[in-house]
């Protein structure tokens, strides 16, 4: 089709080239490319399940056209760490019970990662505000707040040791 574009972007550190129609959202493009850790919840920017980092800043990938992030660096949940070497947020989310059904987890960890990169020692209000664009229906958020607080402390320790 004539409106298709070839774009190159970096996803979790690897360069990816995709052919996408102009109307293709970053959410759809990432999932079509096999990045299923980016979740589709509402496709309207209401729920935050699809959040990814674009150059370190959390955005709803459902509200971002893939073609507009050509050349940018995308990080999804899986780009933060894996089972052998989880990111402190991934570790605290699994340890505290902040993960229940897990469907909101990718977007919430991404939003929390964005917060902690800007504010290494957030108070509860800052955490609440940072996660206010991410809906969760299972956890009541309480254990998510705990997980973010614990991860922030771990990251501060890491920094102090470095």
């Amino acid at each position: 089709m004539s409106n298709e574009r070839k774009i190159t972007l970096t996803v979790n550190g690897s360069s990816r080239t995709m052919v996408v129609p102009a109307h293709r959202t970053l959410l759809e493009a990432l999932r079509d490319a096999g990045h299923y850790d980016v979740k589709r919840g509402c496709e309207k920017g209401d729920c935050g399940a699809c959040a990814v980092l674009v150059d370190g800043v959390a955005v709803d990938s459902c509200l971002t056209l893939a073609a507009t992030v050509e050349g940018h660096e995308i990080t999804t949940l899986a780009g933060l760490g894996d089972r052998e070497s989880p990111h402190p947020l991934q570790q605290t989310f699994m340890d505290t019970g902040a993960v229940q059904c897990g469907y909101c987890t990718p977007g919430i960890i991404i939003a929390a990662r964005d917060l902690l990169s800007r504010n290494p020692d957030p108070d509860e209000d800052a955490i609440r505000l940072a996660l206010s664009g991410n809906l969760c229906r299972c956890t009541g958020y309480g254990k998510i707040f705990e997980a973010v607080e614990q991860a922030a402390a771990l990251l501060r320790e890491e920094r102090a040791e470095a």
Partner: protein
Amino acid sequence: MSDIDTLGHDTANVAFRQVGKPLTRTDAPGKAVGKTRYAGDHTMPGMLHAKVVRADMASARLVRLDVSRARALPGVAVVLTAAEMSDRTSATDIPGQTGRQRLKTNQQILVREQVRYYGEPLALIAAETPDIAEEAARLITFELEPVPGIYTPEDGLKPDAPVIQGTDNVVSEYRIRKGDVDAGFAEADVIVERTYKTPFQEHAFLEPEAGLAWVDENEVINIRVCTQVIEHFRAIADAVGVPHNKVRIMGSLVGGGFGGKEDITVEVYLALLTKATGRPVRLEFSREDSFVGHGKRHPFTITHRTGVTRDGRITALDVQILGDAGAYVYLSPYVLLYCVVNAPGPYRVDNLTVRGRAVATNNMYTSAFRGFGGLQACAAYEQQMDEVANAIGMDRLEFRRRNFLKTGEPMATGFVPPSAIWTDRCAEAAWAALGEPTPSPAPHIRIGRGIGCSQQSYGRLTFLHDTSEAWVGAEMDGTVVVRSGVTDIGAGQASALGQIAAELLGVTLDNVVVYNSDSAVTPLAGTTTATRALYMTGNAARLAATAVRERLVARAAQEFEVAPENINLGDNRAFVIDDPERAMPFRDLIAICASEGIHRSELSIFRAPFTDMLDPETGQGQAHPDYAYGAHAIEVAVDIETGEVTILKSIAAHDVGQCINRAAVEGQIDGGAQNGQGYALSEELLFDEGRLLTPSFAEYLTPTAMDVPRVEHIIFESRSGLGPFGAKGVGEPAMTPVAPAIANAVADAIGVRVFEMPITPERVVDALADARG
């Protein structure tokens, strides 16, 4: 805790190395690092993309449906309408397995002539790409001729009402008659009559319905889908016209259920489309599809008329219940039954009448939702307890104390719950934990407190004759496998089975893998509904693991030349209890058993109590296996200028019988508190003549991270439940008392009650204005 010790319980010789701890769930790591594949994350080569075309009116006659242009569009594989399936229907009642007579409330899969609710499916499309499926949907034209509809159950009862279901729109009716209500009212010093309204509620799970289906080399229709009930395979097979052994449902880890993935949704469309095309088909609901594509919580209007003495004794109670069943029957009769049997709540009421009716309308159909009628009953009885206490000038907790049902006493249906009834200690603890009242920061901010006490069943209705199976076995290297059909909808249902097996076989949880949720391969475990997964499947896993354990212990006893009673399994080894240095690794014991042909696995079935239906005249008898009791205490601040309600303190106290995973229990409580808060304050499905006006999260407001308090958990363990190790269940009970506790706190704060939920700012301001006259 002595009042339940005498109940005794069948526990193995276990030291609780696993059970009760806040362990990391087996499913958590995969989810936290983005490795978990949900139902919508699967693809197959050559798969088609499906779309559902829906009616845009709630009550209409289908005059014309033209799919010819859609069929002609290149890339469209098939378009199905009712014309292609004139004899096909889909079951809507009793999900999953039961040998008992069903209600036979099958319904059309696609609209034949009459549209009964907004969004009812007209046609199914399968195409090469999602874009082509979208385009095909735009090419389908239809003409709907409006016909008069019914949009409230009250209207549905009018003699001249159009008939939507049955002969008179009453899809179900139940009664309870106990004692002498007239005499009870005559004895009363005060009679208090109030009517409470509860709203529709949307489950709002984050994962919209999705699935992938294909026909395999044996002509079996395989469906990978997010569902609470893989045993819909039978109803799907019936719906598409193949034998039951030719449909296989593989559940994925589910992105939230809450009852909203209990009925059949995408799987019947997937089965029809893959059968019609012979190709793999994928269908994902959009969020708007999801809002109109599964049932909602029943709104109920509940009137309590309570007779009470000045010293706070309830002498009589009459409860009238009217529920909106929506356009199709689905689980309305059972939801209504839960509401009826729980109508007086966890209180002694000797003279009682209850009448409940569920009436069809042209609103969105209503079905299962966490709490399942028991929750709506609680919303009414707990507000009524406050109203009655206020009417006789008695402290609200003291009034409850004087009427709490106690362990060993009969509930409304005359049934004596077999476990501990610890509502009193839950209520006392929750109320005490509120501590000192928060001072009001300004004259227009009013502080108030409320409590909700609850009775909620765990386990399905006993006349359904529920069973559950699990298989537990040890591999040659000493790792352990659990196989069970149980679906995991996010609460850790599978992980809990792993913990139970780990506990009984003396291995650590990281040595256990749970294979679950495959109707063809894993033993059928029943539904993940009704707070039954831990009770039923947990018991099946307990039985299977215990049988394996006994054989392993016997063999170890022979090895160490001691009595079997002197052997225990723990920390991945078998050891002599009075000489723990004498031990062997678990894997060595397994190797011995394997070399001698000792059976290292077991398939077990657990059966709930089987009963008949309640007496149709009196409503007396057993409805459920058992009940869980708890309380929720709330402190709110209400801005009387804006009507805004803020929750300041939220304390949950529940007797869970026995925690299996403490973190999971707390998680259920937190989620229940949040879900109950939305129900009480902000979540509102608005309809205009049945047309849903709020089909997105921008309009339907579930609580966000900005809205919820941190919940304090007080967990009692009576060890008296019917589940493994004395567990009860907490999935539904966690939510049940929350909304009335909030409503009672708001009424306490502003001095007037808002009788209709959600208690929106508008309703608060209106109630205050009405009170001022």
